[in-house]
């Protein structure tokens, strides 16, 4: 029994005393209330971080665009070498989203070596952000290499990688990284679609670009609620500019039953691409 007290209870009690840091003069009830109050505050904080918005999977968004006719556009992807120049954590998180989408598009279009390159960049960025465990515990690089000739398997691997990353970030209260990564992926998806829409005026693609507002609005709202760094504040402004550029194409507002109708001429698409470029240039311009 003595051993039990020494090995379990005393450290627990000592730990509790250290944690509570209470004033010795206060009575027991007051001390308990104080600690409970702190714990409740932590819980509330936790709730705010956890009960957020479920954003669409980038792989699904990519599939929707591909089904609408979006082809592979190698020249439009973010240059591989750009990732090496990034310094800020926020830029690395944004880049992880951008390269993630490039990886998806490449894999979906059987450009497996490019996809593999993007995966390796993503892994390096994840390492810099303290997320390397996701890649290592699941052997994604090895799995990817073993399935280079199987497009369906590659998509499953990427889907799982995205889901694991999302769960890890949320489990570890890294809402800021979740949002920045999603912002990067969102920007790249809409950029690739917009450059194609400029040359083809594909109505399905343009409508899908408008549909992406459904995740842009909560993204901007949540970025505003996080403790913003200067980079985040700038990004919010840039995303709002993108939002304005898309909204300019709405010719019929949505109703309860009917979707909105969006039409974009050359000028509007070029303006949208210019706004998206501002965000992409944070990453792609770093190569020069």
């Amino acid at each position, binding site marked *: 029994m003595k051993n039990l007290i020494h090995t379990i*209870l005393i450290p*627990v*009690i000592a*730990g*509790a*005393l250290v*944690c*509570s840091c*209470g004033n010795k003069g206060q009575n*027991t009830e007051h*001390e*308990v209330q104080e*600690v*409970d109050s702190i*714990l409740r505050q*932590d*819980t509330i904080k*936790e*709730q705010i*971080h*956890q*009960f*957020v*918005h*479920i*954003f*669409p*999977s980038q792989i*699904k968004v990519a*599939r*929707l665009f591909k*089904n609408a006719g979006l082809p592979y556009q190698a020249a439009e992807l973010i240059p591989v070498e750009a990732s090496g120049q990034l310094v800020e954590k926020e830029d690395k998180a944004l880049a992880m989203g951008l390269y993630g989408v490039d990886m998806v598009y490449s894999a979906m279009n059987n450009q497996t070596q490019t996809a593999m390159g993007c995966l390796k960049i993503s892994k390096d960025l994840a390492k810099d952000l303290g997320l390397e465990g996701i890649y290592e515990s699941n052997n994604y690089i090895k799995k990817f290499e073993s399935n280079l000739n199987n497009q369906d398997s590659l998509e499953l691997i990427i*889907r*799982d990688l995205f*889901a*694991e990353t*999302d*769960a*890890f970030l*949320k*489990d570890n209260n890294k809402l800021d990284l979740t949002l920045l990564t999603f912002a990067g992926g969102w920007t790249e998806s809409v950029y690739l679609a917009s450059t194609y829409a400029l040359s083809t005026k594909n109505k399905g693609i343009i409508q899908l670009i408008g*549909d992406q507002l*459904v*995740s842009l*609005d*909560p993204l901007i709202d949540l970025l505003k609620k996080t403790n913003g760094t200067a980079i985040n504040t700038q990004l919010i402004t840039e995303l709002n500019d993108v939002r304005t550029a898309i909204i300019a194409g709405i010719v019929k507002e*949505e109703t*309860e*039953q*009917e*979707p909105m109708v969006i039409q974009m001429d050359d000028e509007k698409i070029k303006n949208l691409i210019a706004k998206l470029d501002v965000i992409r240039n944070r990453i792609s311009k770093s190569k020069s």
Partner: protein
Amino acid sequence: MRLLQTALLLSFLAISTSPISAQCKSLKTLKTEYADIIKPYDFEGISAGVLGAGKTTNISVSVFSKVKYRFHFYSEGYDGPVIVKIITLNHQVLWTNEKDPGNMMAEFTPKKTDKYFVEYTTPSSANDDSRGCIALILSSRPY
């Protein structure tokens, strides 16, 4: 003696209430547990958190038209059933388990791309501090 009593009480509180993960499974665990349940749908996203008894909260989701979705609702640690509603931006209730609280799965193919709110209302408890865990596991069908 008084100090020891206080310390024991504090240590109990610290153990029983501070590690939120002790009340709520990690998202990684939930994702693993639902991996087979969601089949043949694909994992789309997940959110979870601790919520007090007799409280209401919501998780919002972005959904696209012409995509089939399954919403799996998870709850743990409450004295009774958790009532779930799926609501549109215009407050139209699309689905609820009010009449069948055991039903913890909804299926949808949205007519238009939209933002839905999944509202959870937890049952009241005699213990004001009672808390449990709620989660939403969203899956969609291969396209």
